[in-house]
């Protein structure tokens, strides 16, 4: 099936933003799992400090594309990525770029909360310690506190930093994972359906958190929940069968979709 491919020029026109600086951009990104092609050439620009949501039916490639943005697909043996992904105009698939450094700049939060089986404190301290970001215990304490504060978890856990992270509730675990990502001061945070394993109250807390992080971080959120995309994102990209069908301001896409498939999906005719 051939779908309308959006050229970057067209995207540029339709997404004109006054103060926007392009943070990441993808050029003809294709992903192969063994023989089969899972993504058919994606072009996209992501602007600094905005929140962009990826929506689409399951299996449409939105998570696969997300994982291209910090090279998490490298960890899957059979996956192969072609095309270009630029971070501040630098190709992240270029051999000269270190994947460790890339992931320190582009953090990731996963679908299922995955705190390490360590204490809350150690969960947060993990990244800074790996990268050698702090020198003293005091500094580390400050990083842990400020990360937990930014993730809105500090008040809940400040008395039990030594308790295991796996003992927290699902929503708290997910915020812990966000705090863990924040602790290394990334520029971009990728979130892969961060609320799909959570109850509605925990979800709303995470959504508030995303709202607060907006402005300091570039956020890319994959969600299967259209309301969530409508609530939290500045822009929304609709994926279908490995193609990017439409990318536009969120209110535009939900009120006035350009493409028939987008409209069908948004109005619940499939997906």
């Amino acid at each position, binding site marked *: 099936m051939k779908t309308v491919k959006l050229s970057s020029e067209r995207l540029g026109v339709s997404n004109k933003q006054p103060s926007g600086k392009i943070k990441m951009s993808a050029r003809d990104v294709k992903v192969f799992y063994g023989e089969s092609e899972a993504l058919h050439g994606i072009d996209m620009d992501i602007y600094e400090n905005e929140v962009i949501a990826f929506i689409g039916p399951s299996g449409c490639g939105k998570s696969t594309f997300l994982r291209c943005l910090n090279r998490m697909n490298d960890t899957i043996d059979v996956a192969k990525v072609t095309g270009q992904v630029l971070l501040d105009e630098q190709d992240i698939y270029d051999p000269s770029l270190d994947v460790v450094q*890339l992931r320190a700049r582009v953090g990731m939060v996963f679908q299922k909360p995955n705190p*390490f089986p360590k204490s809350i404190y150690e969960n947060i301290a993990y990244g800074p310690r*790996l990268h050698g970001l702090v020198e003293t215990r005091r500094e580390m304490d400050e990083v842990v506190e400020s990360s937990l504060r930014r993730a809105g978890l500090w008040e809940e856990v400040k008395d039990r930093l030594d308790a295991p992270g796996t003992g927290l509730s699902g929503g708290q675990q997910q915020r812990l994972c966000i705090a863990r990502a924040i602790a290394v001061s990334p520029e971009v945070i990728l979130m892969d359906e961060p609320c799909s394993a959570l109850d509605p109250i925990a979800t709303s807390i995470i959504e508030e958190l995303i709202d607060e992080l907006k402005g300091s971080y570039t956020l890319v959120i994959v969600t299967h929940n259209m309301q969530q995309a409508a609530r939290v994102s500045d822009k929304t990209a609709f994926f279908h069968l490995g193609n990017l069908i439409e990318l536009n301001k969120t209110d535009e896409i939900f009120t006035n979709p350009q493409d028939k498939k987008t409209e069908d999906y948004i109005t619940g005719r499939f997906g």
Partner: protein
Amino acid sequence: MSNLMLAGVLLMLLALAYQLGLTRSRKLTTDLSGQKVRLHSRPVYHGALVAFWTVVPAFGVFLLWRFIQPGVINQMIIAQLPEAIMAGMTDSDMRVFLRRITHLSSGFGLSDQPQPHELQAAELLSVLQVRGHALMLALMASLAAAGLYFSWQQIHPDLRARNQMERVVKVALIACSSVAILTTIGIVLSMFGEAMRFFAFVNPMDFFFGTTWNPRFQTAGTEGQTGFGMLPLLWGTVMIALIALLVAIPVGLMAAIYMSEYAPSRVRSVAKPIIEVLAGIPTIVYGFFALITVGPFLSSFGATFGLDIRATSALTAGVVMGIMIIPFISSLSDDIITQVPRSLRDGSLGLGATQSETIRKVVLPAALPGIVGAILLAASRAIGETMIVVLAAGNSPVLTANPFEAVSTMTVTIVNQLTGDLDFASPQSLVAFALGLTLFVITLLLNVIALVIVRKYREQYE
């Protein structure tokens, strides 16, 4: 009738009874007026039930008879022995006498001339044996006939033959699964019983805490030189097991990590089975390998550094045992590492950790309990291992901290004390059971702890 013929007859009876049951139940499917009747159970079940009742009780009698007859006959023969001869007989004389008359009656003959009372007894023995056999056959035949007749009579469209047969099958299955339990009970009881007999000779305190091992027969002038102190043996066992773990843990664990986290699937599919070959090699082969290859190598290797390493020493046995348990540690750890959820790895890699950082800081700590369990299992294997130490440890039961010296272990001593003449009345033989019991308890504890840890670990990630 020989056993073989008897078996043949029983088998034929089985087939016959089955056929009879089958035919009768088939006939019942149409009643006198030619109407179809529904049987509760299919004819095969009726046949099987008849066959069961015909053959199994008779066979039971056979087994029971076999077990009881020799004792009863011996008693009858002894009962009719003349007083004068009985009076002079000790227990062992009696055993010799019984063996002699068995030989006489079976026609083997004796190397010397039999006594008149022996001839008489032998004759009685043959008579009794023939009579007993005949009695048994008669009993078996009547039981079989009765079983056949009554169960055949019973056949009826409403007879729940299938349910009855299934109950029989279930009972048989339960009987089979009780064998494993009986084995454990047998191990515990037999070792406990013999060990108690040993402790009648030797004070348990002296055994468990004594530091001299010298289980010689006490003859005049050597009092005080015998010692049944187990500590030198326990220490030898522990030292060799520790050396083995020192070899096996680094190699096994790192191999497991490499195989599960790094190795391309092609390398993995070749190397993993090859390493597991090590687990299948008989321990006697390891022992021989230690004796002719590793021992001399270590000895000359030590010599180049001015170290005096004996060819058969704790080190030799330990190193070879370490090689043997590498696959235990590597396969178990491999399983356990693979069970650590992918999401944890992703979480760490997503933060920019390198693969080795992820393994060392996230995967291994998460897998630690399971790995500890694997190591405990390997340790228990090392402690109970026999042939390697028999051949390569040098068999010198002394308390020494020097791994280059010859030592002895509990397993070696069990073998030494129980080979050759088996005299179950002396502490020199019985001590083997006390050692065996100790060994059993130690390995049991290690296994139980290991299994509990591993089970808990599995549940955590299921």
